[in-house]
């Protein structure tokens, strides 16, 4: 048996905060062999970043290894001198970080940065290093490697930057361990898929051990041979990937797998109640016990040991045997979940807010026609001075949202999806086009709009941290719309605010709390309550779950579905995640570079024919199932450019590019048999034939 490349033994890392030590990583052991990809999955606060920092030797000044050891190729890495570490960093052990732009030096060209590693470790002369840098850029499949080597980081797109960092990490010929810290989290899903392909391909070549840290269960399923599930700094389960996904033994793993929305599956998601314990208040028993539906008395008292359940399958749970035998079931069935939701609905005291609602007969809540939004329109003076040309973020978008329904708007970053929502609510000005809310035309800034219009449309923002004023209590925040828009008295608003909190499943004593005392999911619940306070007919949800952990995301999605069913509110649900949209939406529209490219009912949305862009989006979603075959529709990385391509906007990246016509003519809207519309030159039957053949 050869020695593993990386061996972590009973590692405990703690941080010193105001004179006290708090354990962030607790008794972790794992071995990574050569050519093995080891996945570490965890939500925020699980200690995965601390683990990475400890492995790399990058722990911050107030962090320290309290116990255990890390061996790197048999060498005691924790005792290694600074000099020794510098010898190994970049040579035998390298890392690809999460945010590519902040990891690259903006003052050096890409080529110089890669060559620097080779020169620094004396692998090559300066000239040879340059040549090798270009060779590495070619290996990570960057187009025009010579050109890229001469460019500065800001001249590359996010995907290209990440490729350059991978080239840098793999540049050393002696590489033994590659640590990937959420390498694709900041990328769009189509780019992520292409980068994961690249990792998979390179793995076969470099033979180094890989530690793949991520929160995304789909990514792990695709990439890793073995996975450790981390929760509150402890390993909950550690198993070969296949075993973990098909026969998970820990309640946390099982619930987590059920919390991920999957395409074509509209069963309610399994939410996990509660939140991850903070460093200050780790439970003394099993760390997951406070949130575990199967927790017994002893779970709260005695910490379970990490036991060997099967060959190579480790689990930290008192009840794993019952789970393995199938004697213990704690996941709720779809029907149970639905009943659970309905009980909440009946309990809600929030009804009287809506009881006075006028029984409006309008079926269309929002009608938008030919909306255009342009950024960077300056005064005549700045135009003379030649500042940047105006950029049209939304170009000729039309849509309708029926009462009580959800329109899901899917697009990658920079597609204009958020700008569209902001133009409807008046936070940015429309350049042209019309929008009607309940047949009232929408014009001007919110201040210029009538109260009734403001009341009828509300918004939920992406970042829960920013959507609540940190200096105002939850009560103060929730009371305002009740007073200003509904004209309630202070006492009425007090009562209604408490009801609102109960409607979003938060206790009423949260009214006197400040946002800093709430978790991200709880803040988003308050933001939802605020949006519902005005009894709107339409709520614009701008990526409301994208910054939340999977288990929390499921709860928020369920809450939104439940509130909609009860109060007949329409949603414009904006997301980059097609699976999330597919879970909640009745209709789906796909937006690319400011234009809709496909729209249709959600039920039949995931069957071909698709616009080639949608096809790539669907194929790119990493599925939490290691047996799923990767569907090979990949897009080339987008070029950073504000120039809109002529003809079809998608033609430079389109895998089904026809030729001249795509470049010169804007494609027409086409309608398939199911009544879906897409904008492409290829007729429906041909496109369907192409895509089914490819999918099979």
């Amino acid at each position, binding site marked *: 048996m050869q020695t593993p490349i990386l061996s972590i033994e009973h590692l405990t890392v703690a941080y010193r905060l*105001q004179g006290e030590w708090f354990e962030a990583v607790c008794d972790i052991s794992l071995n990574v062999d050569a050519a093995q990809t080891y996945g570490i999955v965890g939500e925020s606060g699980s200690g995965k970043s601390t683990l990475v920092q400890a492995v790399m030797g990058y722990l911050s000044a107030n962090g320290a290894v309290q116990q255990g050891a890390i061996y790197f190729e048999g060498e005691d890495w924790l005792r290694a001198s600074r000099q020794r570490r510098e010898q190994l960093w970049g040579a035998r052990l390298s890392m690809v970080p999460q945010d590519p732009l902040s990891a690259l030096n903006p003052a050096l060209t890409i080529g110089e940065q890669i060559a620097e590693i080779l020169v620094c470790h004396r692998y090559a002369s300066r000239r040879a290093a340059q040549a090798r840098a270009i060779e590495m850029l070619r290996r990570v499949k960057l187009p025009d490697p010579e050109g890229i080597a001469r460019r500065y980081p800001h001249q590359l797109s996010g995907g290209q930057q990440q490729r350059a960092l991978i080239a840098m990490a793999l540049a050393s010929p002696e590489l033994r361990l590659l640590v990937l810290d959420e390498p694709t989290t900041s990328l769009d899903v189509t780019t992520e898929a292409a980068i994961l392909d690249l990792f998979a391909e390179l793995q076969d070549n470099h033979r180094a051990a890989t530690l793949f840290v991520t929160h995304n269960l789909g990514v792990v399923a695709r990439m890793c041979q073995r996975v450790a599930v981390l929760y509150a700094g402890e390993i909950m389960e550690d198993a070969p990937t296949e075993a973990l996904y098909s026969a998970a033994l820990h309640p946390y793993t099982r619930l987590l797998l059920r919390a991920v929305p999957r395409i074509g599956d509209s069963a309610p998601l399994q939410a996990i109640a509660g939140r991850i314990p903070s460093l200050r208040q780790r439970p003394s028993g099993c760390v997951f016990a406070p949130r575990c539906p199967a927790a017994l008395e002893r779970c709260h008292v005695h910490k379970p040991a990490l036991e060997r359940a099967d060959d190579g399958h480790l689990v930290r749970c008192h009840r794993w045997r019952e789970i393995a035998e199938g004697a213990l079931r704690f996941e709720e069935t779809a029907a149970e979940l639905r009943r659970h939701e309905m009980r909440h609905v009946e309990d809600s005291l929030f009804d009287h807010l809506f009881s006075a609602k006028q029984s409006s007969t309008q079926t269309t809540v929002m009608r938008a026609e030919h909306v255009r939004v342009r950024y960077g329109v300056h005064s005549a003076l700045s135009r003379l001075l030649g500042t940047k040309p105006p950029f049209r973020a939304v170009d000729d978008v039309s849509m309708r949202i029926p009462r009580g329904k959800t329109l899901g708007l899917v697009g990658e970053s920079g597609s204009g999806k958020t700008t569209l929502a902001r133009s409807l*609510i*008046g*936070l940015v000005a429309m350049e042209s086009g019309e929008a009607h809310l309940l047949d009232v035309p929408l014009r001007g*800034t*919110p*201040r210029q*709009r009538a*109260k009734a219009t*403001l009341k009828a*449309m*509300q*918004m939920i*923002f*992406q*970042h829960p941290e*920013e*959507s*609540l*004023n*940190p*200096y*105002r*209590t939850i009560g103060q*925040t929730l009371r*305002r*719309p009740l007073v*200003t*828009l509904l004209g309630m008295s202070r*006492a009425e608003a*007090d009562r209604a605010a408490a009801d609102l909190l109960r409607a979003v499943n938060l206790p009423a004593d949260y*009214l*006197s709390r400040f946002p*800093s005392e709430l978790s991200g999911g709880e803040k988003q619940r308050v*933001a939802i309550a*605020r949006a519902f306070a*005005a009894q709107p007919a339409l709520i614009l949800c701008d990526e409301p779950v994208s910054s939340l952990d999977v288990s929390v995301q499921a709860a928020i999605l369920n809450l939104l579905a439940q509130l909609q069913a009860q109060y007949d509110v329409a949603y414009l649900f904006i997301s980059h995640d097609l699976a999330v949209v597919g879970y909640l939406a009745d209709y789906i529209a796909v937006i690319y570079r400011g234009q809709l490219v496909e729209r249709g009912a959600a039920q039949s949305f995931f069957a071909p024919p698709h616009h080639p862009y949608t096809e790539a989006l669907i194929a790119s979603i990493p599925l939490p199932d290691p047996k799923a075959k990767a569907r090979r529709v990949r897009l080339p990385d987008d070029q950073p450019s504000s120039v809109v391509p002529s003809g079809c906007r998608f033609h430079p990246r389109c895998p089904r590019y026809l030729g001249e016509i795509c470049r010169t003519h804007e494609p027409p809207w086409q309608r398939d048999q199911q009544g879906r519309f897409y904008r492409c030159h290829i007729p429906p039957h041909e496109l369907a034939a192409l895509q089914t053949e490819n999918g099979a």
Partner: protein
Amino acid sequence: MRATTRLSAARSTPTLRLNLTRRGRLLRRLWHDAPFSVIGGIGVLLFLIVALIGPYLTPYHPTANSLPDRNQPPSLVHPFGTDNFGRDILSRIIHGGRNIFALTGTATLIAVGLGLVIGLHVGYLGGWLDQIVMRLIDALLALPALLLTLVLLGALGNSRFTVLVAIVILYVPIVTRVVRSVVLDVKTKAYIEAAEISGESRFHILFREILPAVLPTLAVEGALRFSYAIFLVASLGFLGLGVARPEPDWGLMVSEARDWYALSPHMLFFPSAAIVALVVCVNLMADGLRRLLEYSEVD
């Protein structure tokens, strides 16, 4: 009605207690990290107390001449000694401290208040208003402080009121700038947009939603302005401006003591030391305020 009042009172108590214990914890932490800033704060407090109640305790009148006691070195009778007219230097410093606190304190408060209101508005509203106000401010900031004050003293007459006007004119632009920069950051936050789409009034958004975020920075800036104002007033006093002669003024005392330096150095030392000590204490306090602000951001 009564029930609601009781309810809200019951609700507010725990928060209050929480804030008090939190404040205590923050102060302890500050003492641990930067003890001098706490000492500075205590120093400012002592100066303030002495300025407030000192004048009632001083045994001598600050302008009472006593020719037999001229140029006395520090002694038990005159702890800081006497000057060339036999006036008790300690009494003069205490009274001068009161004058300086009254003048610079009022001027700083007015400047901070005006700067806050202007900064909130131009920062939030932006556009042409912002452009015009900011260019005006640039122009004002380009003028040397002492020169502007001298011109004003010439135009409006040599009085304490003119000094106050000068300080306000000098510091409003600086405070406006600082406030505006914070507002520019805060106004992009989603919670401000959430207030806008709920039809909140401009007053509510400026003074209820944005102001709390500005206050910590404003406190630090106010403390710094205060220390510079003390310097400015002392400099003017040294030049004999903005003070009426027999009135005690620290700057003027330093200026007068120059001629007697060789004979009685204590005349120069004590007023100079008072200026230095107060300015240093105010600056240390400002540093402490800044740290406290950082702590609360981290928490």
